[in-house]
């Protein structure tokens, strides 16, 4: 047994044995057939869909109401069911029963298609989220890039909603929202590139694998370079803006625009837009944890004989860790929403173009030099 002082530098320099992601659960699903019908192919996308529904019900809507209540010294929903747990179910029942109204002056095809495209854009990115070392919808070799690009389709859906509603508030909301989403894609993408450079791959599973090791949290990308944490914060801010979350919620700014691009929507169409917002919150949180915080790797280190890292690694633990990290950032987003006031439009653009983008470009160059010559 070595003394502890010798043990630590030794372990730091030792090359980490990478955990191999086999995607074996996905492969098992792919070959699953019932009476010759490839059920498994449909089960793979169904799993994230069910997950989104459950997460939006409990962490999303219920969680947000409880968090906001806590922050404003209220109690929050507590009548329907124990601790108000059935409140969101009741809300969904109400939304389903509502009359499906399409305004007469609206452009009907655009009005109906808009929410669908917004939701599809948010949901399609789940195809490349690594839920565990054994489960990822599609391990593309351009995974992160795919996620960034498919989310930009959401902007088209938002424009369709805003234009199709034929309402001034909606159009203003849509124009603001799209300007914001398109602008903030730039610092977000540069921050993502910093993470990608450190991992040396665009594939989600390879990025996660490059951060595994027996020291747990110390192998995470955020601790591997002096600027990685800046990239992480820039990505988090940009993600808030891309999800149209407060303090960047000027597209729906209630005090100015009624409720922005979805002013005219009610019932299930409204629920769809809402679901898409929560879906993209979790999606950006997971991308952030994959790039900088080790994805499904356990944060606990092996300390001598107490192999905490080995005990908490594995496919099921992986799913636990990544969902935990995702939920953590979703809760932080709620915390931010109920803490900070809304930006003005010009402040928003100032922050994006004159603060975040130059800083992101600088740390991008610094990170590249660091990767080439230091690490």
């Amino acid at each position: 047994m070595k003394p502890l002082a010798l043990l630590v530098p030794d372990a730091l320099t030792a090359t980490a044995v990478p955990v191999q992601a086999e995607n074996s659960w996905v492969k098992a699903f792919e070959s699953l057939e019932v009476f010759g019908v490839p059920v498994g192919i449909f089960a793979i996308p169904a799993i994230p869909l069910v997950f989104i529904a459950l997460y939006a019900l409990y962490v999303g809507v219920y969680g947000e109401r409880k968090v906001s209540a806590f922050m404003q010294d209220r109690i929050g929903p507590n009548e329907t069911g124990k601790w108000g747990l059935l409140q969101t179910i009741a809300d969904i029942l109400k939304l389903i029963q509502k009359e499906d109204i399409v305004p007469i002056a609206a452009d009907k095809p655009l009005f109906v298609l808009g929410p669908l495209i917004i939701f599809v854009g948010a949901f399609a990115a789940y195809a490349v989220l690594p839920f565990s070392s054994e489960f990822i919808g599609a391990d593309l070799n351009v995974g992160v890039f795919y996620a960034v690009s498919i989310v930009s389709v959401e902007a088209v859906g938002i424009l369709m909603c805003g234009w199709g509603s034929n309402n001034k508030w909606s159009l203003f909301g849509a124009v603001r929202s799209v300007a914001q989403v398109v602008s903030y894609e730039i610092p977000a993408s540069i921050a993502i590139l910093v993470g990608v450079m450190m991992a040396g791959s665009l594939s989600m599973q390879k990025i996660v694998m490059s951060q595994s090791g027996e020291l747990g949290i110390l192998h995470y990308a955020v601790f591997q370079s002096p600027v990685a944490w800046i990239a992480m914060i820039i990505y988090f801010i940009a993600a808030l803006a891309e999800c149209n979350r407060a303090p960047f919620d000027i597209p729906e700014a209630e005090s100015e625009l009624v409720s922005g691009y979805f002013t005219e929507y009610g019932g299930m169409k409204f629920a769809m837009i809402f679901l898409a917002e929560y879906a993209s919150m979790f999606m950006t949180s997971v991308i952030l944890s994959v790039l900088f915080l080790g994805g499904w790797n356990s944060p606990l280190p092996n300390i001598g004989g107490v192999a905490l890292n080995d005990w908490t690694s594995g496919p099921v633990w992986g799913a636990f860790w990544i969902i935990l990290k995702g939920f953590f950032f979703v809760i932080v987003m709620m915390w931010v929403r109920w803490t900070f006031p809304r930006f003005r439009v010009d402040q928003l653009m100032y922050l994006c173009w004159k603060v975040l983008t130059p800083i992101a470009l600088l740390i991008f160059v610094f990170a590249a030099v660091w990767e080439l010559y230091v690490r």
Partner: protein
Amino acid sequence: METVSFILFSFLGALVMVGSIGTVWSRNPVTSALFLVLNFFALGGIYLLLEAQFIAVVQVIVYAGAIMVLFLFTIMLLNLDDEQALKEKFDLQKGFGILLGGVLLVEVLYILGLKINLPQKSTTLTPVEIGEAKNIGRELITNFLFPFEIVSILLLLAVVGAIVLAKKNFSPNT
């Protein structure tokens, strides 16, 4: 697998055609632009069938995402509700369009009619490997460095030009 990719190709090809025909035919500029989004998106799917994942994703983010959003933006802000207002102004453009379309038609007929030999494969990489970001990046920085730099200067010029145009009538005191 062959049949699956054939079905996918037919579906995506049909979408591309619906998109392009819709772009030309629809009366409303916004609908027209949205059909163009459909066209670009389906084209990205066809790239994916050719196992060019990187190009497919670039197609979606650059064309279907960014450029088309700016198109839609311009259309909505300029409020080009009726195309009648545009009709007289752009006769020169129409002539130019006919010229370019004719050249393209001749090119397509030339390739189809003469069945000219396509360039031979000069690489040992599989299609999937060619499409990877790593290999594309390496080619851009080695064999195609000059065109790559020229294109980047062109884009820089476009950015500078946009700023100059935007600042032309701008004085900070008013």
